[in-house]
């Protein structure tokens, strides 16, 4: 990351603000000077995270890494078994591969769809009208419901043989008794639809960052006679690419770590065709009490998600607009 911040000697400009008593003035002055060095300011401002990470994250992370090398059933002692968990995962656990495939499909399909929806709706809702507050709320509300029991029940009902979806198809003359959730080809799509339906949070981020685009850009463009369509392609979209990138990275991570949709609705049925990786991991850890194995699964996923994220970062320079470039 290159930068162009002017590094003025900041200490030079801060003497005037000192309102300390004479005794400690010298000491305090030195302290202030130190505090106003850029690198020191960096550490000071980053302190909450440094502290939080060391205090709340690092130990549990190390512990879980340790568990991944053990036979651990949560309620008893963990015993070291080396790489056995990892070996078993790659060589003996069919569900590991199966759930990995399902998760990749889910993430790679639902995330782009969700982002496209979120972006389109965000653009539509930019217009200010009396109803726009209502509209925004309406499109955002599904995200608030998240993974509640109500959603689980409703989703199963909607896609049931006698459910709403088949009824709607009936209205269009397609008499269907199709079991959307019972077919190995379609069940995963009901979960993808649920994920896409909850596009509200990505939409909100798009809305917020659309507001960040300076209005003069559009004014200048209109003066030049650019159509709205051109404006979208030449101004809005390029300036939005950092946010698209952000949403893409976050949603990809979330997509691979997806849990709720499968857990509350299908639990992997039918025939494990909707079994998310995280649900498999959860079952292993908390149902079968193979918590060591579950930890190993989590770390394998971390490497995979890390690789996907790194890949996305590598593509960044080809399509993400960078102010400083």
């Amino acid at each position: 990351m290159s930068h162009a911040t002017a590094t003025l000697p900041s200490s030079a400009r801060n003497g005037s603000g000192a309102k300390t008593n004479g005794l400690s003035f010298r000491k305090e002055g030195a302290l202030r000077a130190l505090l106003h060095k850029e690198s020191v300011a960096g550490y000071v401002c980053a302190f909450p995270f440094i502290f939080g990470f060391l205090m709340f994250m690092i130990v549990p992370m190390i512990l879980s890494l340790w568990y991944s090398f053990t036979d651990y059933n949560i309620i008893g002692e963990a015993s070291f078994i080396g790489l056995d968990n990892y070996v078993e995962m790659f060589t003996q656990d069919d569900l590991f591969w199966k759930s990995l495939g399902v998760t990749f499909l889910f993430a790679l399909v639902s995330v782009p769809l969700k982002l496209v929806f979120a972006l389109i709706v965000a653009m539509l809702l930019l217009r200010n009208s009396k109803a726009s507050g209502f509209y925004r709320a309406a499109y955002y509300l599904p995200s608030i419901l998240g993974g509640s029991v109500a959603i689980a029940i409703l989703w199963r009902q909607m896609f049931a043989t006698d459910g709403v979806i088949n009824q709607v198809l009936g209205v269009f003359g397609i008499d269907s008794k199709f079991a959307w959730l019972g077919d190995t080809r379609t069940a995963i799509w009901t979960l993808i639809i649920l994920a896409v339906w909850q596009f509200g949070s990505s939409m909100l981020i798009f809305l917020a960052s659309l507001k960040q685009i300076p209005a003069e850009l559009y004014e200048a463009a209109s003066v030049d006679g650019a159509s709205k369509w051109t404006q979208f392609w030449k101004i809005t979209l390029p300036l939005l690419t950092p946010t698209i990138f952000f949403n893409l990275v976050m949603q990809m991570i979330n997509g691979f770590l997806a849990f709720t949709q499968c857990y509350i609705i299908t639990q992997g049925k039918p025939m494990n065709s909707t079994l998310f990786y995280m649900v498999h991991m959860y079952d292993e850890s908390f149902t079968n009490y193979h918590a060591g194995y579950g930890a190993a699964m989590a770390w394998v996923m971390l490497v995979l998600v890390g690789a996907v994220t790194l890949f996305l970062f590598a593509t960044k320079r080809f399509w993400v607009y960078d102010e400083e470039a």
Partner: protein
Amino acid sequence: MSAAITSASSASAGRANRAGRANSVNSANRPRIKPGRIVYHVLVFAFALVMLYPIAWMVFSSFKPTNTVFSTAGQLIPTEWTLDNYANGFKGFEESIPFYRYIGNSLFIAVTATVGTVFSSAIVAYALSRLHFKGRKVLFTAMMISMMLPAQVLMVPQYLWYQKLGWTDSYLPLIVPYCFAIQGFFIYLMMNFIEGIPRSLDEAAQIDGCSYYGIFARVIFPLLTPALVTGCIFSFMWRWDDFLGALLYVSDSAKLPVALALKMFADPSSSSDYGAMFAMASVSILPSVLIFLFFQKYLVEGVSTSGLKG
């Protein structure tokens, strides 16, 4: 794609002075074509109804007699209306603890954790995207990695750790970590927005005599409003919905948050009162909805310029 970027950067040449960023895009240029507007409203409204169907279903279900919730799941409007579910729900599980206590508990947890998260994340994001110091990249990587480990796998180790700290049986694990920017998502979100703020503003402020902290307080923070608002909405909603933490760390039944209390209307091993659950679920989404309605107008009104004066 690259053509678009070139043109955008040439367009951005006009951004030397961006004091007017307060103006929102939509106020810039909108031709007022009536038929178009009607089509727009019809479409957006119709689709909004589709989006709202599940919520409507839940709310209407909460007025159905509880033993008919499933048998009538296919119909939206109850044939027989009842308020019993609300009476049952508000009664709670113990005589001395009415249901609204749980809502109060959740409000306390969600509000404190949200305020903590948003402020700490903002300042950390400022450090990571604007200030140069050794280890910045390491911190960024640590933040990304911390998002890639699922909560389910950290649950037990975290519990053991908080137990060592003596924090179990209290709200501390549900609040304090969030005040230390433990959720990388918010840092990264704010970083993304800070990067959209032109650096020339920092430089101008610096020339005016602002320290690095001053730049944050007077330039970045005010301009970060859309991100702060978004962060508040998300954080509140997530804290509100979180039951995993409370499950482990709250043992006093009077201190349960609402997300966990809701689950107690249903028990797969015995019978469940889905009517009461839907009634209380309908009540418990209200705060998130209100927070959204309250904050969303700040998203729309754009950023106040008052912070720009160094």
